[in-house]
């Protein structure tokens, strides 16, 4: 009899949790349920757990339980106040070695990607980056189900499913917003286990001298409810003014396809797609975007997609719930007018 542990890294900075951490707990719960039957038959137990590092972050540990963690391994040290690669990965590796989880998921954020490669290499195990699909599947030659991690390759044109047969844990980094948020249960109970990992001086030699907060307003397109995106069909950078206006009317944010970002029409923070952000808003409006696969993989999980393009054969229409074939410079003003009228009627 053994314990099969499904682990998630809880990412926090300044006491704020990156929501992808909760999404990961949702996935871990599902993966755990996929092996329940086989574990039961073998007399094994299955556990959804997470690991959290920081300074005075026990409150976050309690939140994690409400998002589905049975147990939170907490390393709470002043030295871990701010994220740094070396002390973080060494702590995590220490705790992983102790409990030997079967699966370990980390968010594919800048912090998570910085961390995941170091953890996996230190543990000498396999890591599949930027996964968009995860399941515990039967694999020939393996008694237990294995983590089948699917990720886009070549700009989303090919989906590759990767597995890690022998080494443990089976690690994946997962893009924010690819998977839904799990239910939040305020009544949930779980255990917080404090861990201590000794660090030597060399581990903390790299120091953060200062933080520079960007003056420019940061856009959070990943978690926006409404996104209006513009593509090359806008013709000029000025075209984004119209996009902004519609986004504003809808209370949403502005997205963009890669060519516009590459051309310097708008900043990278707005880029939707494989090489930008993955989004899943309630409403996604794509204007003048032809719909290259690398864009589509970043937005096809949106609840409702409206595409506007003058070319009736534009591939963006393939993922749209409704498409308007026409000139975006006519369609968008009409949309703005329509929304204004609706809002007046509501008021």
């Amino acid at each position: 009899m053994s314990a099969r542990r499904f682990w998630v890294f809880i990412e926090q900075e300044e006491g704020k949790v990156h929501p992808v951490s909760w999404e990961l707990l949702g996935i871990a719960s599902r993966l755990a349920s996929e092996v329940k039957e086989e574990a039961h038959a073998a007399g094994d137990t299955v556990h959804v757990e997470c690991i959290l590092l920081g300074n005075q972050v026990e409150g976050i540990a309690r939140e994690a339980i409400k998002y589905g963690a049975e147990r939170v391994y907490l390393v709470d040290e002043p030295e871990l106040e701010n994220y740094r690669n070396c002390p973080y990965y060494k702590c995590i590796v220490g705790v992983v070695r102790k409990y030997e989880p079967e699966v370990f998921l980390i968010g594919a954020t800048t912090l998570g990607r910085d961390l995941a490669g170091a953890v996996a290499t230190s543990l000498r195990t396999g890591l599949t980056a930027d996964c968009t699909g995860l399941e515990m599947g039967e694999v020939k030659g393996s008694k237990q189900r294995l983590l089948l991690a699917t990720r886009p390759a070549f700009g989303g044109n090919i989906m590759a499913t990767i597995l890690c047969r022998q080494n443990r844990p089976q690690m994946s980094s997962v893009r924010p917003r690819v998977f839904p948020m799990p239910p939040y249960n305020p009544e949930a109970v779980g255990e917080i286990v404090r861990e201590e990992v000794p660090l030597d001086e060399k581990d903390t030699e790299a120091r953060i001298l200062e933080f520079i907060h960007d003056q420019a307003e940061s856009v959070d397109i990943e978690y926006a409810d409404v996104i209006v995106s513009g593509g090359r069909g806008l013709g000029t950078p000025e075209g984004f003014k119209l996009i902004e206006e519609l986004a504003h009317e809808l209370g949403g944010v502005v997205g963009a396809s890669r060519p516009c970002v590459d051309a310097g029409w708008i900043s990278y923070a707005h880029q939707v797609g494989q090489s930008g952000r993955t989004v899943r808003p309630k409403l996604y409006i794509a204007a003048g975007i032809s719909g290259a696969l690398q864009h589509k993989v970043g937005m096809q999980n949106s609840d409702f997609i409206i595409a506007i393009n003058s070319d009736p054969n534009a591939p963006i229409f393939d993922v749209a719930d409704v498409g308007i074939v026409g000139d975006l410079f006519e369609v968008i003003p009409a949309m703005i007018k329509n929304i204004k009228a609706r809002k007046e009627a509501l008021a």
Partner: protein
Amino acid sequence: MNTQDEKIRFDAIVVGAGLAGSTAAMMMARAGLNVALIERGQKAGGKNYFGGAIYTHAIGEVLPDFMDRKPPFERPVTEAGFWMLSKDGGLTKMTVQGGKLGAEPADAYMASRAVFDVWWAEQAQREGALLIPKTSVVDFIRDSAGQVIGVSTDRAQGDVYAPVVIICEGVNNLLTQKLGLIDHDLEPAHVALAFKQVIALPMDTINARFGLPDEKHGLAASVLGDVSLGLPGMGFVYTNNTSVSVGLGMMLDAVVEYRLKPYEVLQRYLRHPAIAPLIKGGQLMEYGAHLIPEGGYRDMPKLYTGGAMVAGDAASMVNALHWEGTNMAIVAGKLAAETAIEAHKQGDFSAQALSQYEARLKDRFILKDMKQYRNFARFLETHPEFMDAYPGFINDALGQFFSAYGMPKKTLFKNILGSLTSRRQLFKAVGDMLSMGRAVMGW
């Protein structure tokens, strides 16, 4: 390594690694000259989209053992001629197969220029020429007497010296103008815009659809009739090993005048009931457009000056709508090289010495090849039976063909020329059309 005050010197400089340029570099390097072959693209022939037939007589003249060097040929041309598309969807084929077309090596092979030009430049490198890519020649270095003694490039410390420079810059003839050999841009009425798609299909499917016994047989057809909206233009269909090149060429002035979107014109042509089934289910591999000077020797610049010569498209040595530039470019590159080699022997690079080049060209092209290898004329010359069999029909075809490309077009496009006076407009228009293609294709 060169330091700042050490000049970069070669025995000869060739500008542009297309077919003419690589040929010139190959010949000179073989004769023992230290040759710099300067190419502005990432790869040799970087700007050449055009595929089509490569004539082996020109290749063999430069490289007798070419077949042993594994040229990236597609199928040999074993069937050639004309297809006529009618407005109601019909197709009349006037092609010839067998006879001379069955010889080995064949008279002509299909090839993709993007691939073939790289191979051809490799042959020049094998002879010892140094291919310098990603570098644009922007001007000439002259001595006090005005003789060209080198070129300057767009790179830092970028001057390169040589007593002789061969310009093979292609259709965009800025350097030729800088040399004062021609005083104007090529006129839109003398430039064809050719655009094509390469569509991948299984070998067996190509064989079945085009009635070819196996991959050792290939078809090269010029397509007339309902091709280009009734405007002067001609289509083509080539069968490669596992792809089909289909496209058409139109005079640039017509494209600009009627604000045509080449991609849409091409799509219309590809949807013709006689063409569509041939490419059905295929996968688009390439979409490209290219300018081809079509003026023929009417547009030819003066071909030499002290220390420099011009060859290939830059010298308008093409007859585009007959898909005939490649062999002329190769022969011209060879003749320029021979002239340069001779100049090195004599130690004389003056205009007088290089005038030999024009003499050699006149001897080769204008008197013989231009006539002999002109596709259409040649076809009729070598297949008189064809004219006997279909006299009425061929007369109609000829009538259409020559009224499109001959006399009347001058008057037809007179007005257009007035509106297209600057190069900027001309090339901007082309740029717009290309970006249109990209937008449509989602590149």
